[in-house]
């Protein structure tokens, strides 16, 4: 295998033994780069393009997500993976909204999980680089032709949230509300929704499996989480399995909300234009439900989502 064609992966951790272990694990597969701190990694990134960055979260001086935020500015095409021994919620929210990370991997990690995560990241990075190198598609082609305004679906138990969001977004968007997952799927079938704003739990059921399924079958759909029940574990699941685009905490802040939905909508249009990018936001299969447990309500939604997919691809 030619070295030049090997994917390049950068590992950042303040513990050199972790880096040694990574070197042993991935040697031969990738072209490996190592840095023991955020600033050293930034120096390296300035001269050396890489495809995937795997960073520790808790490092002295510069935290992992602070580093990934800078890394994203230097090298937006690299896929970012955060390796964490312990994460507080703020770090996770920051890493989603500002670091736009691909996956969270918990320490201690299983080598096969880490390997497949890095492999997925490499594939996604390659495909998005191909898009970036390809000539810009004609901007005039509007994939959502026929609907004048972009549509936003708000999935929340609280009926006051959708009108609130409509007020914040003003007349530029059509906002639809849904108080259950069934309602949400119906709405997704009848309207061409680009952005979903969702709570983490609806009717006492986590939405992560629904969002994960939606993302698998309709990759151009962009999800923004708006929650007052943020917890670190749920947030990590939503990122890994749902590839949520942004995470906001309630109470809703007008400016933040508008910026995030606008950005989510632009992102949706970009995804709709360039399907090659979908891989970049590929989700991890959700953990299988424990045997004997009642099937989550989303399972019966599968068929409807499949039909939705055919409806989308039929266009």
């Amino acid at each position: 295998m030619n070295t030049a064609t090997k994917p390049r992966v950068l590992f950042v951790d303040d513990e050199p033994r972790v880096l040694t272990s990574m070197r042993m694990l991935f040697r031969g597969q990738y072209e490996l780069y190592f840095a023991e701190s955020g600033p050293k990694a930034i120096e390296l990134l300035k001269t050396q393009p890489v495809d995937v960055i795997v960073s520790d979260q808790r490092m002295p001086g510069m935290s992992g997500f602070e580093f990934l935020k800078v890394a994203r500015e230097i090298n937006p095409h690299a896929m970012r993976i955060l390796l964490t021994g312990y994460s507080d919620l703020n770090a996770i929210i920051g890493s989603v909204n500002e670091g736009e990370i691909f996956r969270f991997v918990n320490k201690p990690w299983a080598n096969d999980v880490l390997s497949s995560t890095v492999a997925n990241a490499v594939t996604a990075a390659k495909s998005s680089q191909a898009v970036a190198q390809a000539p810009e598609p004609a901007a005039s082609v509007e994939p959502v032709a026929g609907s004048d305004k972009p549509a936003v679906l708000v999935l929340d138990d609280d009926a006051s949230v959708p009108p609130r969001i409509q007020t914040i977004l003003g007349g530029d968007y059509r906002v639809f509300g849904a108080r259950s997952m069934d309602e949400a799927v119906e709405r997704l079938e009848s309207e061409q929704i680009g952005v979903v704003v969702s709570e983490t739990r609806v009717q006492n059921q986590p939405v992560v499996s629904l969002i994960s399924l939606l993302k698998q079958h309709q990759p151009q759909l962009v999800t923004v989480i708006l929650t007052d029940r943020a917890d670190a574990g749920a947030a990590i699941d939503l990122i890994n399995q749902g590839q949520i685009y942004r995470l906001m905490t309630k109470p809703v802040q007008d400016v933040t909300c508008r910026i995030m939905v606008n950005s989510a909508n632009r992102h949706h249009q970009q995804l709709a234009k360039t399907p090659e990018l979908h891989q970049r936001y590929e989700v991890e299969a959700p953990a299988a439900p424990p045997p004997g447990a009642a099937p989550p309500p989303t399972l019966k939604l599968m068929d409807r989502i499949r039909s939705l997919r055919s409806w989308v691809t039929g266009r």
Partner: protein
Amino acid sequence: MATKRSRERESSVLQYILVGATLAICLLGWLVFKTLSFDQGQHQQRLAAIRTVSALDIDLNRYFLGVLTSKTESNAAQREELRLALARAVNALQEGAQAFDGITPELDAAMQAFYETAGSKISIAMEVRASETARLQSLLDLPTGARLTAIEQAYQNWTQSRIDEANFYRVVLVAYTVFLMLALGYLGYRLRLSYDALDQANGQLREANRTLESQVQARTKDLTKTLHDLRESQAQLIQSEKMASLGQMVAGVAHEINTPLGYARSNAEIVRTSLSGIRELCEAQGKALGLLNAANSSDEDIAGALAQAEEVRQAVQPEELMGDLENLLSDTDHGLVQIADLVSSLKDFSRVDRSRNDLFDLNAGVDSALKICNNQLKGRIEVTRYFAKLPEIECSPSQINQVFLNLINNAAQAIEGEGEIIIETATDKNGVVVRVKDSGCGMSEEVQKRIFEPFYTTKGVGRGTGLGLSIVFRIVEEHGGRIAVESTLGVGTTFSVYLPLTQTKVAA
């Protein structure tokens, strides 16, 4: 203050009352004097004088009328009698004049008129002869009677006016007396009211005295309850602060454990996957060795087996692999030792296996606290320890460790970026002293004054509860020690904890 003022007011009121009473009595006296000013004796004397003069005048007229009608000259005896009568008349006139002089102008005028008439009458009477009929007639014609009547009239007028005046003053006196009676009655009523109020106040005082004890008891009970509630909420707050710092500690410790655990696990997996290559090599070499040892194996078989073994060896590269695996295993070892160390520090730190009051080497406490918060320090802050050989002191090791952890955490948080913490232990005259010195931002004097207050914090919202140092203060105080702080803005801060060798009282 209030009593003094009310006393001043009372004395001034008393003065007013005294002055008022004196004035009222003076007025009363004056009125009584006015009603009594008419002298009845003098009045009778004056009337008697007028009557005397009038009787003399009538006698005189009768005498001269007798002379005029009889035309007889009076004899010497008669003349002498007349002379005496005239003298009496003059005396009476003089007395009357004295009695009436200066009473009223009207009376004065009437008197004057009468004197003139009477004067001429007397002078005529002294010289007149019986023959001088005309002069006798003129003498008789002199209107002394009318003049006397005028005097009496004027006097009666004056008397009447005096009586009227006295009557007026009597009425005024009666009215004034009634007024005084009323005023007195009102004052009495007021006094009665005051007495009533005083009685009531006294009753209330007695009642208050009686209920005071029970009230004090009730208040004391309330206060005790409030104090208890306060203690409880303080304990809850301290508990929540402990939970918060526990959360931070757990975050740090979890990362500290998960990192070595991560590479240890990864290394173990790599070693296991590498084993398949080694096994393959062993099998190939074993097979070649077997063929070599076997008597009936052909050279070709041996050569093939050796070539295969060599091929596997080339693929596996055992020398390099063994070196790598040894490195991985020694890393794994190192990681496991690190985890074991950390767990042992956690145990040392929490001292769950020790009694509350124990003999404890503070140097060991500082070391275990340093290990616990190593995550905050490493790579950023250089820690220098100057440990003296310390006698073991009697204390609650878990609480004292909490003190060290809080002080080191504070020191680390005071340092922006890279810096230095110096921890020094020494013996003091009555015990030991531990100093934690940082090269951090320092504190102003205002901040230094307040740092041990509960809830006082200079950290941002969500970064500190402001209870850490108040807990430190409480623990040190409960151990009979003290804590001192020296700080210079921009230079750094030193906390000194002084602890006695033995506990005089049992730490609460």
